[in-house]
C-alpha cells in the first residue's frame, strides 16, 4: 500500500440486490457511478485505494438495534455487507491505514431507528450506528462521534438512536419536513433530557442549493464540530438533494457537494440516499472522492447543469441565515437551558410516537419512559406495538441501559427487565446494554 493513500474507498454497489425490481433501491443504482469511477481511473490514483467490505455479524447489528423478532429475521445479506463495509471504512481511518474513508455502498440506513420491525425509507439497518457502536465497544465507551447528515431527507433513524446520547452529536441538514418524507426534523427537536442540544436539525426550504448548504456548513456545522471535538466525524452523504433527484426539490450540484466535503473534511463518508442515478450520483460521488483525496474537483460538472443554478450561485435564502443564527444560539446556551421547561419536572419523561414503515407497510406505536438522572443520561423503557398490513400485532418491551450508566440506573434497568419477564402479552422482550451482554430475548 502506498504511503500516499489518503482515501480508502469501500465500494459495494450490490449489483444483485434490490428491494423490488422497479424500486429506486435497485441493482442499477450505482452502475453509472461505477462506470464513471472506472473511466476516470480513480482506483489507479496513488491517493485512492479500494477495499472490500467485511460482513458484519448479527452481534454488530444488535449493538445498534433492537430487531423484532431478531436481527436474523429482519435483514438480508446485503444489510450485513453495507453495515460491514461501513465498519471497514471506520477501521481504515482509526487504524491509520488511510486518512479518510468513503463507504460508497448500498442499501442505505439513516431512516432505521433503534427498534426495527422492518424497512422504512428504504432502510433496515442504520449503518452509521452500527459503525459507531462498534467503535465505542472497541474503545470501551471512550469515544465521541459527530454525524453530519446531508441527505435531503431528515435522518430520523439516526436521530432516534442517538436521541438521548450525549457522546454523539447528530446534525441533520435536510429539506424541510413539512414538504418531504419523513416529515420530522424541525428545529425544536434537540434531543432527550440526557443529551439536550446534541441533536441539531436544520431544515432547508425547498429549492435550496449550494449557497445554503455551504453557508450552513461554514456557519453552523464547523463551529459546532470545533466545540464538540469528536474523535470521529462521519458525513452521512445522501445525494438526493441534487437538482436532478426525482424524489426531492433541492438544488445541490456536484460542485457544491464536493466543496462541502472539502470544508467538512470528514473522517468517514457514508452514502445514504440519492436516486438520480445517471444525472447526479456519478458526478457527486466522483466529486466527493476527489475532494476527500485533496485533488482538484472543479472539473466535475453535470451535463444537465441548468444555467439558472450557475446564475443563482451565491444567492442565499434569508430564512436559512436566520435559522442558522437561531441554532447557533441554541447550541451555545444548551447547557444553561432549564430542562424542566422542555421535559416537565417529573422524574420520568414520557414519549408516545407513531412510526410508519413505508417500505414494509408497518405501523408502529411506541411509548417510552426516560429516567432523568443527574449522574448519567438515564435508563429507558420502551413498549412497541407493530401492526403489519395483514393485521397481526407484535408487542415488545425493551429496557435500554445507556453508555456510562450510573449504578442506580443500571440497577433500576435490571429490575425493570425482570419485571418485563413476568409481564403478560409481550411477544418479545429485550435488554439493551452496550457495556454488557445484549439482545437477551424472552
Amino acid at each position, binding site marked *: 500500500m502506498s504511503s500516499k493513500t489518503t482515501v480508502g474507498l469501500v*465500494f*459495494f*454497489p*450490490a*449489483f*444483485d*440486490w434490490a428491494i423490488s*425490481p*422497479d424500486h429506486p433501491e*435497485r*441493482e*442499477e443504482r450505482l*452502475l*453509472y457511478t*461505477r*462506470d*464513471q469511477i*472506472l*473511466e*476516470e*481511473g*480513480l482506483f*489507479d490514483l496513488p491517493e485512492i485505494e*479500494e*477495499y*472490500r*467490505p467485511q*460482513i458484519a455479524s448479527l452481534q454488530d447489528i444488535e449493538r445498534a438495534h433492537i430487531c423484532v423478532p431478531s436481527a436474523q429475521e429482519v435483514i*438480508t*445479506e*446485503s444489510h450485513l*455487507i453495507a453495515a460491514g463495509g461501513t465498519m471497514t471504512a471506520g477501521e481504515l481511518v482509526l487504524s491509520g491505514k488511510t486518512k479518510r474513508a468513503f463507504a460508497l455502498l448500498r442499501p442505505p440506513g439513516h431512516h432505521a431507528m433503534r427498534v426495527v420491525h422492518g424497512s422504512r425509507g428504504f432502510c433496515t439497518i442504520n449503518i452509521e450506528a452500527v459503525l459507531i457502536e462498534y467503535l465505542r465497544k472497541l474503545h470501551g465507551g471512550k469515544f465521541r462521534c459527530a454525524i453530519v447528515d446531508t441527505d435531503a431527507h431528515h435522518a430520523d433513524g439516526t436521530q432516534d438512536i442517538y436521541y438521548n446520547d450525549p457522546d454523539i452529536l447528530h446534525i441533520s441538514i435536510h429539506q424541510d419536513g413539512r414538504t418531504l418524507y419523513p416529515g420530522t426534523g424541525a428545529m425544536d427537536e434537540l434531543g432527550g433530557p440526557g443529551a439536550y442540544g446534541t441533536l441539531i436539525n436544520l431544515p432547508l426550504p425547498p429549492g435550496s442549493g449550494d449557497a445554503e448548504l455551504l453557508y450552513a456548513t461554514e456557519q453552523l456545522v464547523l463551529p459546532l464540530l470545533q466545540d464538540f471535538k469528536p474523535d470521529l466525524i462521519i458525513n452521512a452523504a445522501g445525494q438526493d438533494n441534487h437538482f436532478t433527484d*426525482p424524489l426531492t426539490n433541492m438544488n445541490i450540484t456536484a460542485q457544491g457537494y464536493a466543496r462541502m466535503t472539502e470544508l467538512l473534511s470528514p473522517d468517514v463518508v457514508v452514502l445514504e440516499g440519492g436516486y438520480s442515478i*445517471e444525472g447526479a450520483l*456519478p*458526478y457527486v460521488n*466522483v466529486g466527493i472522492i*476527489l475532494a476527500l483525496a485533496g*485533488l*482538484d474537483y*472543479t*472539473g*466535475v*460538472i*453535470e*451535463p444537465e447543469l441548468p444555467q439558472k443554478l450557475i446564475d443563482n450561485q451565491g444567492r442565499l435564502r434569508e430564512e436559512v441565515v436566520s435559522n442558522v443564527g437561531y441554532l447557533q444560539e441554541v447550541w451555545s446556551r444548551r447547557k444553561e437551558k432549564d430542562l424542566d421547561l422542555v421535559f416537565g419536572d417529573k422524574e420520568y419523561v414520557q414519549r408516545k410516537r407513531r412510526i410508519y414503515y413505508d417500505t414494509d407497510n408497518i405501523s408502529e406505536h411506541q411509548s417510552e419512559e426516560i429516567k432523568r438522572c443527574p449522574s448519567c443520561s438515564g435508563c429507558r423503557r420502551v413498549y412497541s406495538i407493530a401492526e403489519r398490513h395483514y393485521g397481526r400485532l407484535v408487542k415488545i418491551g425493551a429496557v435500554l441501559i445507556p453508555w456510562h450508566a450510573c449504578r442506580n440506573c443500571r440497577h433500576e434497568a435490571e429490575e425493570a427487565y425482570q419485571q418485563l419477564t413476568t409481564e403478560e402479552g409481550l411477544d418479545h422482550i429485550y435488554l439493551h446494554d452496550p457495556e454488557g451482554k445484549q439482545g437477551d430475548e424472552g
Partner: protein
Amino acid sequence: MSYLVGIDVGGTNTNAVLLKNDVVLATAKAATDHKHLHLGTMQAIASVLKFVPDSVDKPIELHLSTTLATNAVVEGKGAPTAAVIIPGPGLRWEELGLAFKLFPVKGYIDHRGREQAPLDHNQLEEVLAEIKQSGFEAVAVIGKFSPRNLQHELEVEELVTRKFPELLPVTLGHRLSGRLNFPRRITTAVLNASIAKIQAKFVSMVQEVKDRYNLGRIYLLKADGGGIDMKVSITRPIETILSGPAASLMATMALVEEIGDAVVLDIGGTTTEISLFYRGEPLTERDGAEIAGFATLVPALFSRSLGLGGDSAVNYDGHKVSIGPWREGPPVALGGPRVTPTDAVVALGAANIGDQERAIQALKEMGACYEIDPIIMAKKIVTAFSLKAAEAINEIYISLNSRPVYTVSQVMAGENLKPDRLIGMGGPAAYFIPKIAEQMGLPFTVLPYHEAANAIGAAASRPTVATTLRADTALGKLVVPELDYVANIPRPLLFNLEAARREAIAKTITYAEQMGTLFEPSEIEVTEEEVFNMVRGFHMVGKNYTLTTQVKPQVRRIKKHRDEMGEDSE
C-alpha cells in the same frame, strides 16, 4: 504432419525450436543482434529448418516472441507522440500525471455513450496543425468514454486523413480496449502509437525472412500468452509487450502435465517472478499490464516481481537474516563483494558454482562476531530465503482473495484462491523450491533449465482475440469498439441476453477473421457478462448489456525430445 517453428529473441541469444506436431525435433541458437533483430532470427530459423524433411511442402508456421516492443517502451525509444484527448468534464486532465504531450479538444461523451457536447472541429484543426508543426511523428486519439461511443475519435481520424495525411496512421483508443479507464487508455494508445514505426520496420524485415524460407503464417507472442498475426501487430504493437514472461509461463503450461492451482516461481539472480494458475489457467491482470511504470489496458498474464534472487545481497544483524531487494554483485564464490543466497547453497555443497572455500570464508566472517558457524549461517540464509518467498506468495493470495467484488453473492461466497503446488524454474530453483515448498507444505516440481524454454512457450501459443460488446436497448444502440462496429438494435424489446451472447460471439469471430484466423463459435467464450434493467420513473425503459468475449485460451501440449519432464517431489 505439421511443422512449426518457435523463436524467442532474448537479450543475449535468439533461440529456436522446431516442433513436429507436439514433439520438439530440434533446437538451435544464435547471438541476438540488437540492431538487426531479424538476422539472429534468420540464422536460428535456418539451423532448425535443416531438420525438416524435403518431402514437406506445406509452409511452416512461425511463432515469434520478441523483446522489441518491451525494450522500445522501457528504454523510451518510441517516436515523439502527441495525444489528442477529448476529456470532457470530470477529473481534470492536468491532474492525470501522465508524462505525455496531451492536446485536449472540446467534446463530451457521457457514461452511457451519449454525446453531451459535439467535438469542436475548429479547435481540433488548430491542435492538429500545432502537432504537425511541432514535429510529432505519431498521434494517438483518446476520448473519455470512447468505448461507449466511437464517434469523436473517428471524427478526429477522418480529419487527419483529409487534412493532415502525413500524421497517419493514428492510434484510436477505442480500438485497443473496450474497458473503461481513460488514463490507462491514453497510456496504451500513446505507447502503441509511439512504437508503431519500430514495429513496422521489424515486421518488414521478418517478412524478408518469411519470403526467403517460404514460411507460412507468422504470429507474435502477446503479453496474455496468445498470438497475434504479425501483419496485424503493426497496428497494435503494444499487445506484444512483456512477451518474455508470457513465453516462460506458456512453456510451463506446455510442459507440465497437471498445473491445477499452481504458483510458479521463476527465480533469477536479482528477482523472483511469481505467477499463479487457477484450475489450469494462468491468472490475468485485472486491469492490464504495467510496464516501466506505465499502467496500460493491455491484457496480460498476472505476474508479481519480488526482489529476491540467487545474487541478492544478504545482511545479518545478529538476530535476523535479511535478503535483497538489491543485488550488489555476483556471489562471493564467483568473486563478488557480498554474501548471497547462492553462496549459502554453495557452502552447503548443494551447488557447484565457483569457489566453495571463498563462500564458506565469507559466511564465517558474517557470523564471526555472533559466534555462528558458517554452515549454520548458510542454513539460516536458506531458511530466510524460503520464508521471504513463502510470505510474498501468501501476501499475493491474501490480496487476491480480498479483491473488491460487487455482488452480494460474491461477497458471501468469499474468494478462496489457494495454491495446491509449487512449480519452480530458473537457475537457483533446484535448491530453493523444495525448501519453499516445505515451508508452505506443498508438493513441488522443478523444471530443469532449458535454454529453448521461451521458444517452446512461443511455439505453444495460439492466436487469441477479445472483444467488448455494449448494448443499450433504451438507446437502441450496440457497440463493439475494437471492431469499429456500431449498430442500431432494430427491435429492442426482442433483444435479450441470448441475443447479446450470440452477437458478441459472432463479433469475436468476425474480428478474429479480420486478424487472419478462423474460429468456430464453440471456440469462443464469454468471460464477463453484465445485464442491468434500466428503470426510469417506475417504468422499465430497457436493459444494458456489457459482455467481454474471447477465443478460449489454449496451449499446445509439448513433449520434450529425449528430455525427462523434470523432477517431482512425489
